[in-house]
């Protein structure tokens, strides 16, 4: 029996797998029992009512998808009256995701939605701050710190800061989010991207540019999750391109306490269950009693071990690799 539970600050999850915001809703309960998930993170809700972006809102690219859904939203009143009762009826912890146009509006919304039934609030600071030329809050450390401080003051619930991979130096943003009072980080949102239909010569998306997600982004976001995990003391939740248990384990070895699965659900609606089952099987096979033990358990880089081709003389142990023989410098 593998212990799959993980702690995200003071919130204990039965397992480390949950949906990514915007890729999950109660309709998935038509396909499987969503209470088997570690948590239920729902689509971002905004302070204002929004219609979302023009269609086409999605496009396929090699190894992934683009989306420019935007955040269609019926506003916080509808959220409190309809959404909260709906999702708090599930047994798995319900995590709201919120966003707003300015730090103050964000804080007011955060206070408004800090109601019973909600286990944590994911604050989607990857969206535009109109007080900073429409740059996303999490593009830079300073506005991140500022908005997180206001959000922290507005709620006693655990706050998960969702970072944007479009930032140049995500570690610094991560540290600012921690300093501002985040209980955990979600690394990360989608990467701004585009594609063009060369036949019509049009951008594939109605809004021209949109967010890339799916397998293509995994190596990039994994790197960012690794950098963030090494830069902060709060838990990091990895999110980007996870399609399988192996992908999730990579994120956990890189230092993530839990993972979110987005795009994979669109291809296989029960992908998250496969990830949970796969993590459990891998732990069992590898003698891991508690999945939390593998968080950050990364070995040192190097050629030895798996790569020691030809060092196969019976029982003699492979010697340490060539890295010892040479002075690796001038790293560029």
């Amino acid at each position, binding site marked *: 029996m593998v212990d799959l539970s993980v702690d995200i600050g003071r919130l204990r999850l039965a397992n480390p797998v949950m949906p990514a915001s*915007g*890729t*999950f*809703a*109660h*309709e*998935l309960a*038509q*396909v499987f029992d969503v209470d088997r998930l570690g948590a239920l993170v*729902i*689509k971002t*809700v905004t302070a204002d009512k929004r*219609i*979302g972006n023009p*269609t*086409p*809102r*999605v496009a*396929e*690219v*090699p*190894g*992934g*998808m683009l*989306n420019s*859904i935007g955040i*269609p*939203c*019926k506003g916080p009143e*509808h*959220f409190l009256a*309809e*959404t909260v009762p*709906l999702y708090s*009826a599930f047994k798995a912890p319900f995590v709201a995701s919120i966003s707003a146009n300015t730090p103050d509006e964000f804080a007011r919304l955060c206070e408004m939605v800090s109601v019973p039934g909600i286990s944590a609030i994911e604050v989607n600071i990857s969206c535009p701050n109109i007080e900073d030329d429409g740059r996303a809050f999490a593009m830079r450390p300073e506005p991140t710190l500022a908005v997180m401080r206001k959000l922290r003051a507005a709620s006693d619930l655990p706050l998960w800061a969702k970072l944007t991979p479009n930032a140049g130096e995500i570690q610094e943003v991560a540290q600012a989010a921690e300093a501002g009072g985040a209980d955990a980080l979600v690394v990360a949102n989608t990467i701004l991207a585009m594609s063009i239909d060369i036949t019509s010569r049009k951008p594939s998306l109605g809004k021209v540019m949109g967010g890339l997600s*799916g*397998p293509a982004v995994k190596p990039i976001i994994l790197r960012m999750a690794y950098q963030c995990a090494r830069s902060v003391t709060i838990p990091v939740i990895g999110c980007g391109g996870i399609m399988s248990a192996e992908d999730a384990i990579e994120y956990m070895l890189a230092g993530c306490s839990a993972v979110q699965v987005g795009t994979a*659900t*669109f*291809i*296989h*609606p*029960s992908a998250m269950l496969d990830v949970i089952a796969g993590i459990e099987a891998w732990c069992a096979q590898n003698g891991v009693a508690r999945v939390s033990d593998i968080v950050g358990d990364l070995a040192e880089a190097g050629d030895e071990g798996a790569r020691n081709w030809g060092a196969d003389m019976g029982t003699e142990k492979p010697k340490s690799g060539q890295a010892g023989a040479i002075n690796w410098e001038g790293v560029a």
Partner: protein
Amino acid sequence: MQAMHAVPPQPDSLPVLEERAEILRHEAVNGEYRLMQVAAPDQARRARAGQFFHLLCPQDDVLKPFFRRPMSIYAIDAEGGRISFLYKVTGTGTKALAKLGIGERLDMLGPLGIGFSLPPDTATGHKTPIVILARGVGLATLAPLVGLARSAGHAVTAILSARSPALLMSLEETRAAGAEAIAVTDAQGNSDTGHVAALLDDLHAKGRMGALYTCGSNRLLKLAQAHAARHALFGEVAMEQQMACGLGMCFCCVRAFREGDATVHRRVCCEGPVFALEEALGW
């Protein structure tokens, strides 16, 4: 989030299954369309006319095609546990689909969405006669409505439109189900709005048009809306939009609809694909 309902919105939307269904038949119907029949007993039992399945077309390098592809149910054999699709080979996904051989398996998610509903009885307590206006993909989507309506006792007239007679499909099947089928084609020069409008006027005059169903052409949609409005008829339209999740979660499949004075977005995958005729805005 829009449209929150803890219980599925219609009894039609019973729990959804992801199955790897075996292909039983798979053949070209004409130069553009292919017919595919699969064995999927649990899904066939749940399926209703107007619903669709979200098909995982075989993916090749770089996971292309990445998304599933929505495909209407062309025929349901609930007892035999079979479902058929009639699809046009269009792009990456349907080209990959077309290569699947008999005995191979196809990953299908569904049934999904809200199917057709039948019109209320007439003021005199009779079964309302219906008219179906189909073109393009509508020939596939509206096909199972014929059987549904006939077995519920409705008289059915189907106007089937295509570019050329070779591209007309379901003519025989429609007649075999006890419906009248009228074929119009661009090649014969009788498929334009003027001709079809005259046909509808004639059908209405003969008392055979108590409700209107359409799919597959924006022009026919406008025409159907005008006629339904003029005569205050019950009507439905099946819509298309690109889909990612197919389940109502991603909001990529929205289209604009009239709701009183307002224009609202609805998700084709779960609030449709069948919508009230008068509310559709076209595209």
